[in-house]
């Protein structure tokens, strides 16, 4: 650290009959301007004098920050129609002052201003509303495209659909299987600990059967799908958007919804129930492993399972899986199409796809629960 030699000092006199006298001595540089800045701007603002005489004859050095102070003092004076006269500024510093004083701003378009909390809340609310609006429009377009595709199956891009189905379904199989099995084991074990107190461990089979088929199977599959495929759809389509490929499709007369969204939705539609069946199977297997370790033969477990679950549970779960598949694929594609320009835009879309996907799944699951409750009671 260099010790400050001869740091700048401010002397003041007045204001007397409309004139404020200021004098700055010493070195006015980045290290020493701070105190002088605060003091002098405060004096000039408070005085509102017609004239400020600034004597800098004994200022022996001045850098960019010093010049900035001079310019700032002049601005403050101009603000209320006063004048600043600078005396004794050395020619080399005068040159600097002139140089930094020139140049002008373009009349730039309004920049984003930092907003107050209330305004921000309002803005977000409008954004959410607009988002819902876009979602509804998109659902309409998608529905139309799916109907058209059903009427003219030849227009569906089957090759893409099969490739995407492979990625969405086959490649997700190991992770779906592993997680479902583990969740089955964990749930069965937790239930067994609780039921043992009543000597009712056999009812673990009932619990596993119902919760896996109705809830855990479809839900686990859907969440894995949102993380793996919803995000991938958003990233793929978002990248295409940024690289103007979506524009290229449109000017070639190819609707992005038909071209990109329909194959993805179809693939997810077919693969989610299939994956869910696997998740169900592996979840139940996880439960059976726990039961066997508790000393129940496999046949007893499956017998109990048969008593507990009906085809209704299985089909109810698969219907849910259908819906989850459509939702995840659609929201992933929508987020991709909504991608804005810029390097970080694709990342944002990907995040949005996963978050919105999971929110939608949970909402839809709630709705299904109500519907099933009304139907089955």
């Amino acid at each position: 650290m260099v010790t400050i030699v001869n740091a700048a000092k401010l002397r003041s006199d007045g204001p007397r009959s409309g004139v404020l006298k200021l004098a700055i001595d010493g070195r006015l540089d980045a290290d020493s301007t701070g105190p002088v800045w605060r003091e002098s701007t405060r004096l000039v603002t408070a005085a509102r004098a017609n004239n400020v005489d600034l004597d800098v004859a004994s200022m022996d050095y001045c850098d960019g920050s010093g010049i900035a102070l001079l310019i700032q003092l002049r601005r403050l004076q101009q603000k209320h129609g006063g004048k600043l006269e600078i005396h004794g500024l050395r020619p080399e510093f005068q040159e600097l002052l002139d140089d930094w004083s020139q140049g002008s701003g373009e009349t730039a378009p309004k920049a984003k201003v930092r907003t107050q909390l209330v305004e921000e809340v309002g803005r977000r609310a409008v954004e959410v509303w607009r988002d819902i609006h876009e979602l509804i429009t998109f659902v309409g377009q998608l529905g139309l495209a799916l109907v058209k595709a059903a009427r003219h199956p030849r227009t569906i891009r089957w090759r893409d659909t099969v490739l995407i189905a492979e990625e969405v379904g086959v490649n997700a199989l190991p992770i779906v299987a592993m997680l479902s099995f583990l969740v089955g084991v964990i749930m069965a074990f937790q239930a067994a600990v609780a039921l043992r107190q009543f000597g009712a461990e056999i009812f673990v089979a009932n619990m596993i059967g119902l919760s896996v088929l109705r809830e855990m199977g479809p839900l686990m599959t859907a969440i894995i799908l949102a993380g793996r495929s919803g995000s991938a759809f958003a990233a793929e389509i978002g990248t295409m958007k940024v690289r103007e490929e979506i524009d290229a499709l449109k000017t070639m007369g190819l609707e992005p919804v038909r071209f990109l969204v329909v194959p993805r939705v179809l693939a997810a539609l077919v693969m989610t129930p299939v994956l869910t069946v696997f998740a169900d199977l592996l979840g139940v297997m996880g439960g059976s492993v726990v039961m066997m370790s508790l000393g129940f033969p496999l046949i007893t477990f499956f017998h109990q399972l048969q008593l507990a679950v009906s085809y209704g549970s299985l089909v109810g779960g698969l219907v849910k899986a259908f819906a989850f598949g459509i939702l995840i694929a659609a929201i992933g594609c929508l987020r991709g199409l909504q991608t804005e320009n810029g390097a970080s835009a694709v990342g944002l879309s990907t995040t949005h796809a996963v978050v919105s996907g999971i929110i939608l799944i949970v909402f839809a699951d709630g709705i299904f629960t109500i519907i099933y409750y009304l139907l089955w009671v």
Partner: protein
Amino acid sequence: MSSGETIIRVDGFTAAYNGQVILNRLSFEVHRGEVFVILGGSGCGKSTLLKHMIGLYAPAAGTILIDGHNISTAEGDERQQVLRKFGVMYQSGALFGSMTVLDNVCLPLQEFTNLPLDAIRVIASMKLQRVGLGGFDHHMPSELSGGMQKRAAIARAMALDPQVLFLDEPSAGLDPITSAELDELILSLARSLKITFVIVSHELASIFAIADRVIMLDKSVKGIVATGKPKELREHSDNAWVRQFFSRQASTDNPA
């Protein structure tokens, strides 16, 4: 060369994003067969104008007619018909990264014609040959250099034999030699296939080499500051700044 017949008519066209006007009441015409260049500094709205001309956005006011059809209101069959009149090469090329170069060119043919697949392949391959990419059929776009990607994009834009080709900054990101080769390709396509070109560019050297006519846009007036042949603008524009702008490069690259 230009036949003097109008193929694109832009009339009182105004473009705005979120209520902020970018271009204000532009009117001009593009003639059949000419190479028409839209010129201007960064951010003055060249791409905006182009994207409206190809119907990606609807104008805030005014009309854009391509061969008599209003591109922004056309729907259904009429829209498909207008879209087939032109091809577009985007600034980044915008080739589909998951398809080979040949498949990129095949795509419009597959979607809009009933030709058998082997015929489509032959046609697409022929287009690639024409732009100097014979032998690159089975490369992926990412395996091509910047200049080659733009050629491939031109081949794709030409797949359905359009009357007009729109090019957004063909020389952006290219070295001068590659850029000059691309200019030659554009010229030869214009001369031999009688394709009308609408090109966004700010490369003076390339403008003098290829342009039949230019319009120059400027941010400060949100519109056109000069229209004409580049050489005439250099010699005779009423606007001193425009004269100076056109002479700048001419003095080094184009000793007339």
